[in-house]
């Protein structure tokens, strides 16, 4: 709880800074763009977070997003498939990819890191192949849909509504059903979970399915948001943002820890950091540096608090380290 309030305070601070760096007339449009971004990133983060709670990890999220977007455009542009049908196909392919990942991790006992690293390469390549390395003319066929999704309801963007809906569903699943409880049990101590009669393999596969399914939703939102698909850039680094958001929000990569609100706040922090860099006219190229450093600092603070250190210990730690070094 202490951690949650901490990162929430950080989020608020970032937002105030953004407002300070932005012209007052631009507040509205900036807010709107921000919520769109948070919507897309938040959904992939939610999927990654659910998986991380079980002790799994998925490095293929970004490539799966690109692959799903590619399938969607191939169906809609090249084959004139009705959009609702295309959406269903894309969502199903996402779930199927997750099922395959989960199968490889549980039944074949492969390492999640390795399996999804292969996915990271393979799905990006598959997307390029499907799109023939060209940028499809998708804007026209999906114009109506993209207008709807880019709109707002009660002055909140549709993307954010979607995220909130999925967030509520994910929260109920993770924190109020026995399935969520099993996720935590498996992530904390897989062996004890197995000895308690939990169908560990099933739940681990389910976690991978959810992760890739959410990635597929994020892919559709991305396409509707910018009306474009590009094999080389769509979904780039999304897996890293998703994992970073979950970790910022209090998930432990060792599994068994995490809360959905935290994932939401973590994603928002990442998006706001990026926005702040644009607004404060810091060099765009520095953005990954800022995010990397922010994440590292959070990890250090988190680990220190976990070991029972106080803030005062933390502040004096560098000095102590320096003394030990110079003495040695």
């Amino acid at each position, binding site marked *: 709880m202490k951690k949650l309030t901490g990162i929430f305070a950080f989020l608020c601070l970032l937002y105030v800074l953004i407002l300070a760096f932005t012209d007052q007339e631009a507040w509205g449009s900036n807010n709107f763009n921000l919520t769109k971004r948070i919507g897309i990133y938040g959904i992939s983060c939610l999927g990654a977070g659910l998986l991380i709670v079980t002790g799994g990890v998925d490095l293929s999220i970004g490539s799966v997003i690109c692959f799903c977007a590619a399938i969607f455009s191939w169906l809609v542009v090249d084959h004139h498939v009705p959009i609702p049908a295309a959406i269903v196909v894309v969502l199903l392919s996402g779930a199927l990819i997750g099922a395959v990942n989960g199968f490889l991790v549980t039944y074949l006992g492969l390492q999640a890191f390795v399996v999804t690293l292969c996915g990271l390469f393979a799905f990006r390549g598959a997307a390029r192949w499907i799109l023939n390395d060209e940028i499809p003319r998708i804007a026209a066929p999906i114009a109506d849909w993209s207008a709807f999704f880019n709109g707002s309801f009660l002055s909140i963007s549709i993307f954010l509504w979607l995220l909130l809906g999925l967030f509520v569903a994910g929260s109920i699943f993770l924190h109020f059903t026995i399935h969520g409880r099993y996720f935590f049990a498996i992530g904390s*101590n897989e062996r004890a979970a197995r000895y308690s009669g939990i169908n560990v393999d099933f739940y681990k596969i389910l976690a991978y399915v959810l992760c890739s399914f959410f990635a597929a939703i994020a892919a559709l939102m991305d396409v509707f948001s910018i009306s474009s698909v590009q094999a080389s850039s769509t979904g780039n680094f999304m897996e890293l943002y998703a994992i970073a958001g979950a970790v910022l929000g209090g998930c432990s990569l060792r599994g068994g820890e995490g809360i959905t609100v935290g994932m939401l706040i973590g994603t928002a922090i990442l998006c706001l950091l990026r926005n702040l860099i644009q607004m404060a006219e810091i060099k765009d190229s520095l953005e990954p540096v800022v995010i990397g450093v922010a994440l590292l600092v959070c990890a250090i603070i988190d680990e220190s608090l976990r070991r029972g250190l106080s803030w005062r210990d933390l502040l004096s730690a560098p000095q102590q380290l320096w003394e030990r070094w110079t003495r040695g």
Partner: protein
Amino acid sequence: MPPHLCATGIDKAFPGVRALQNVQLEIQSGEVLAVVGENGAGKSTLMKILAGVYQPDAGTVEMDQRPIVVRSVKEAEHLGIVLIHQELNLAGDLDIAGNIFLGREPTWGGLLKLIDQRRLHDNAAKIANRLGLTIPSRTLVHQLSLGQQQLVEIARAISLQSRLLILDEPTSSLTETETARLFSVLKELKTQGISILYISHRLKEVEIIADRVVVLRDGKNAGELRRGEINHRALVQLMVGRELKQFFQRQHQAKTPLARTGIEVKDLRWLPAQPGITFTIEPGEIVGMAGLMGAGRTELAQTLFGVRRKLTGAVTIDGKPIAVRKPADAIAAGIFLIPEDRRIEGLILTDSVKHNISIASLPALSRFGFLQRSREERLAEAMCERFMVRTPGIGQMVGNLSGGNQQKVVLAKWLSRTPKLLILDEPTRGIDVGAKSEIYALMDDLAHQGAGILMISSDLEEILGISDRVLVMHAGTLAGSLHRAELTEEAIMHLATGGESRT
């Protein structure tokens, strides 16, 4: 001839246990000295003190009549004392020579420290010759059989100019030919003046290989047998021979006959070359399962519970065959397991008492998959009360509780339902006396309600104290079954150490 190594008055205590009290041990050069004793008699502790793993609280060790202090494994190796663990310590991806000289490779090229492959393999070949090893020294260790790997460990010890070799249960995973092979190597080493401390549960092997046997019991010297006196019966008598204290009194020992037939296990095997295991447990019966470490008791429990895959065998409950492929199947059939290592298999230490108690009963505590927390809390409260779990509250992290209370949480996890067969694997290990008798009372009560109970234990006192019947395992198979009337420590140890069944 003065002894090569002589330890006198060795004391060692761990929190809550006096592992060794005033233990004496002498070994001549070129002698094979076997050290035997029950589980927990202090054999391993003594060996680890000699090898520098532990420091004794009191006592002295002399080598060649000079006092020595062994502060680390490295120092011990320097003195020529090498301990070879039961679990081998080899780098599987290196070859034989690389393992023998790991950390001591001959080098050239000055600071570059390039490995002198030729000298490495020449030296390895010399040592292999001494042991009569014929495998090329470039063979990777993971391609060797367990017996061959053991010889590589011994070769490493020889290369350290070892004069005292300590072998902890060296044959526990060897085949008979490999064991014979090991023995001929040991005999060869003997003629070279190397002393061997040989720890084993397998008394037959001790009879074959040992020049002298030292028996430990409850951390003290219990006796010594010389070459001509070593036989199974004499050894067992020295190993047990303890006064039986007043133990837990069963309330319901007189069994009420029930119509059900209970649990029948037929021809169960989990290893290819294993004789099938067959036994029955009647409803209301507490069956103790004795055996020495590595006899396969835990594996049997895991197989019955579906954690370990069985190769053959049938299990029936009340005449109905059940198919157990995973723990959920066993649980559905009414077989519950209280696992051996509660901290790894029984509990989620970082989670609360409440969540740990409810984890196996969640479907019953939910509606349409939604967890009903108030019911979960009521269950946890009720179970904590019934099992007298001492905890500040049900929200407390289980890792913060004492061992006894942790074990009670594991029991509470299962016993909101009545099992048909409850398997307890070392249920009272590391638990204080009060919690122990509470757990016995619970088993007694469950048996009275008609559950069959299989209690695996290395504590003979406990086995004798509360079992209606005892099954004894030895080397992966059932060595025999003893009824209450025939239950003595001697009878159990006789079977557990590979003695012939007398019935």
